[in-house]
């Protein structure tokens, strides 16, 4: 395997730009393709190479409509995935699967629907106090001629917490940049690990199935193709996807007051109970984000293996766990947000086991626990999250006060990187977050993200169950919708080479 050429990868795949606490995203449509190409050719897009002096960053990604507007040939676009071509809002059945119905329905969105589908997103990041200057320098030359701004997405630094008040972005997959991870197509992984094949997040590399995810491959003679590298799995073809990925962006409005006021009502205005309930819904503590289930004593692949000693220790404390220690859901409810979004299971129940036990499990037997084998294997459904908060920060206790006039909207500009939108983002959103039947549950969706839309044949879709040790479950009824989708789209995040290809395409 050749080493990854970091200079060709957009930085967001490798870094979260943690120190660049200021950020904003421009959602634009191409007004003038020639000017847009000129701007793209000059755009100082930040690569994943480590540059200690870096104080600002720029990232660019395109929707299918954007690639069309820039003149990328139809035949090339056809090589992208179906969901990218159709778009997040291009098919009502996709909206049903993503839970984008009712209050989340795309026709109510501020951006991302019909003529408000952006062509590109231009993401800016900067050290504190430097964003305004950075914006001006990006918007010079060709910018105003090239693009029409359809939505400006601002962000706020909430000190590493999301709008409800919980520490955000704790669990991230550990990308196998060195390409040392070995997966076998026909062999089950018996334990959960956090290390994930590069191909799950970067096109042009083997994924968790030890396969290359489909992407546009060009004939070497195609115009502009000479700027691209050869595809590893198709010698002789030029790989437009190589070192690129897909980015999912969704603007999620969080009803922070509604969230805390509802919990306060359920908790009978007792502060500790209110916090505990919120923690049960999230699956982590409000204080520092420690998991509600005990940390495992044995080490785990891809956990606590990066950064300095303190960072490693912190990662172990926050991420070295699975739900194997809590099969009844009494420590962390089955429906808790982090248990849904990342169930931390292996390919097969039972952990490391002898061949006979393995065979028994393969045949579907040997599980004492009713729920032992309900959830799909996690490693095929991971996301790299790069979201940022927006709006005014609101302290959980202050959230109990009635909203003042002109109260700020707050929430998350959800940004996720993945190589296969269908198997990663859409699967997680559909099967794990929105679905009321996740892991044997039956009348509840994600306590934070769920839309509470009625499910035919089910009396409720808005409950939250808390299994109790040695007692009958506690169940919270009439959980309101706390998060509303205001916009969203699927983007292709090109490599720097692919970006140049796009900038000269169709000329």
């Amino acid at each position, binding site marked *: 395997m050749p080493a990854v050429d970091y200079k060709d990868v957009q930085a967001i795949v490798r870094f979260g730009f943690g120190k660049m606490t200021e950020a904003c995203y421009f959602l634009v449509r191409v007004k003038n393709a020639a000017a847009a190409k000129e701007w793209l050719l000059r755009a100082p897009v930040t690569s994943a190479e480590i540059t200690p002096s870096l104080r600002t960053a720029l990232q660019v990604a395109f929707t299918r409509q954007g690639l069309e507007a820039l003149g990328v040939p139809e035949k090339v676009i056809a090589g992208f995935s179906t969901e990218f071509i159709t778009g997040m809002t291009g*098919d009502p059945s996709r909206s049903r699967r993503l839970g984008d119905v009712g209050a989340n329905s795309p026709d109510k969105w501020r951006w991302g629907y019909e003529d408000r589908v952006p062509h590109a997103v231009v993401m800016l990041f900067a050290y504190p106090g430097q964003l305004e200057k950075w914006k001006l320098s990006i918007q010079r030359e060709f910018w105003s001629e090239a693009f029409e701004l359809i939505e400006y997405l601002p962000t706020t630094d909430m000190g590493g917490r999301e709008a409800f008040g919980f520490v955000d972005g704790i669990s991230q997959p550990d990308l196998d940049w060195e390409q040392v991870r070995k997966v076998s197509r026909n062999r089950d992984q018996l334990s959960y690990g956090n290390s994930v094949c590069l191909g799950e997040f970067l096109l042009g590399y083997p994924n968790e199935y030890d396969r290359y995810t489909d992407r546009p491959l060009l004939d070497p003679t195609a115009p502009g193709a000479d700027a691209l590298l050869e595809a590893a799995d198709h010698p002789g073809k030029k790989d437009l996807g190589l070192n690129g990925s897909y980015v999912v962006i969704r603007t999620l409005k969080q009803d922070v007051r509604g969230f805390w006021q509802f919990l306060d009502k359920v908790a009978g205005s007792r502060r500790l109970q209110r916090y505990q309930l919120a923690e049960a819904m999230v699956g982590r503590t409000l204080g520092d984000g420690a998991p509600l289930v005990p940390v495992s004593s044995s080490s785990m692949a891809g956990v606590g293996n990066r950064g300095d000693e303190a960072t490693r220790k912190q990662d172990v404390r926050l991420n070295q766990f699975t739900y194997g220690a809590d099969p*009844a859901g009494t420590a962390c409810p089955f429906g808790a947000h982090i248990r849904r979004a990342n169930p931390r299971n292996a390919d097969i129940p039972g952990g490391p086991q002898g061949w006979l036990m393995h065979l028994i499990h393969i*045949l579907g037997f040997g599980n004492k626990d009713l729920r032992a*084998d*309900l959830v*799909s294997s996690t490693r095929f459904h991971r996301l790299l999250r790069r979201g940022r908060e927006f709006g005014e920060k609101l302290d959980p206790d202050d959230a109990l006060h009635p909203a003042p006039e002109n109260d700020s909207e707050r929430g998350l500009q959800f940004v996720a990187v993945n190589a296969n939108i269908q198997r990663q983002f859409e699967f997680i959103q559909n*099967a794990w977050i929105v679905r009321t*039947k996740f892991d044997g549950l039956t009348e509840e969706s994600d306590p934070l993200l769920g839309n509470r839309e009625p499910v035919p044949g089910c009396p409720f879709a808005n409950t939250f169950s808390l299994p109790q040790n040695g007692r009958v479950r*506690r169940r919270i009824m009439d959980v309101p919708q706390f998060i509303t989708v205001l916009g969203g789209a699927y983007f292709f995040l090109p490599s720097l080479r692919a970006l140049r290809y796009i900038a000269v395409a169709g000329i």
Partner: protein
Amino acid sequence: MTPQDHVLVIAPIKTERETELRRLLASMNSQPGQANPDNPIVPFGQFDQIHFARFVVLTDQTEEDIHTLYGLPAVHYPLTLAFFADFDGTADDFRADLAARAGDGLRQIFSFCQDFTSGTDLARWMKDHENPAATMYMNWRGRTVIEIRQENALRLQLECHIQRNQKAFSKMTPQQVHQALREFTTAQIYRSELKLDRPKRTPFGWWLRNLIHLIGVPVILLLLTPFLILYLPIFIYQLRRRETTDRQYAPRVSSCYEAKLGNLEDYDVTNQFTVVGGIKPGLFRRWLMSYLLWLMEYTTRHIYIRGHLARVSTIHAARWVFLNDKKRMVFASNYDGSLDSYMDDFINKVGWGLNLVFSNGISYPKTDWLVLNGSKNEQPYKYVLRRHELPTDVWYKAYPGLTVFDLKRNTLIRRGIDQAEMSDGEAKQWVALF
């Protein structure tokens, strides 16, 4: 126990009237592809023995594959209408009941078929046009639609009762909860708010046939073993020769076809799936597939009868049926979740099982040793499946909102209610079902 049965009626239609037929079928739906249970043509909801039913016009956009991949002449099969039903009781009773209570509507539908005339005896005609399943899977042997509905009503009332008395229940031990819920159930039955029928006696004829099958198949296998062992080296040679030369053909379906199929999905927590495909040419594949399905039928009849098929616990019912003298096969299933999660579940949990059967189908991703690779070629596998999938014109499910796991949980709750005494451990597990 009332055993379930199933029928698949298949008949060629008058090709020129396909559009008209599809329009008629669509008129039975309340949402695209989703049958209105009270539709006047076949009011499925009035038949409390039907679990699942569907009408599909069987087209095949993959007919040319045999020419593309094997150079053999492509056969263009006549356009047919297929009617699938899974129900409680015997097929004879079912046909008679259907003819008696939905005769007019069915006549209207089947009049689009080539040999159906106004004078035709409906039940007889259906029986004459039936194709037996090579393998049939029903997730829970002998659990009737009525039991499913009663058990669901039971659970909902118990949940509601617990909720209303949450404070009192939160202090009870599992044993006390069990007793309290048993008392409540008895009171509800007394007040006619609940009904829990006792299972009927298993028909003797069915029981005997099942027993003979249970013993007979292993006996036959045992007798065959010496010959199979002798044949094994030849088999391996034949298999490997084919596996190394068979070609995969997995173009992605157009966004338009994808949208057409997607339009029929994800209204209920369960979805339908109908695929048709050609079987690889030659006797080897034909016999291999027949043999494997025969073995599989044994497992679905005697082993996988309690809520899961190997590791997959999301299939309500599925069947594999040979068509056109075993040149083609139709597979129809009713599964929980969206198609993507269904396919992912399959690839990761029973990829080997899919390979065993479907690798005998034309265009399937390359397998090794019958069980390896194949479906593990994730994307080509998904494309192949989608390409062979057909839009299901009308689909009916008797218990919307309920998954296979829901049904299992409800049954376990009901069993607990029927049980007078429980150990502490049992009671703890039972209480965790709520």
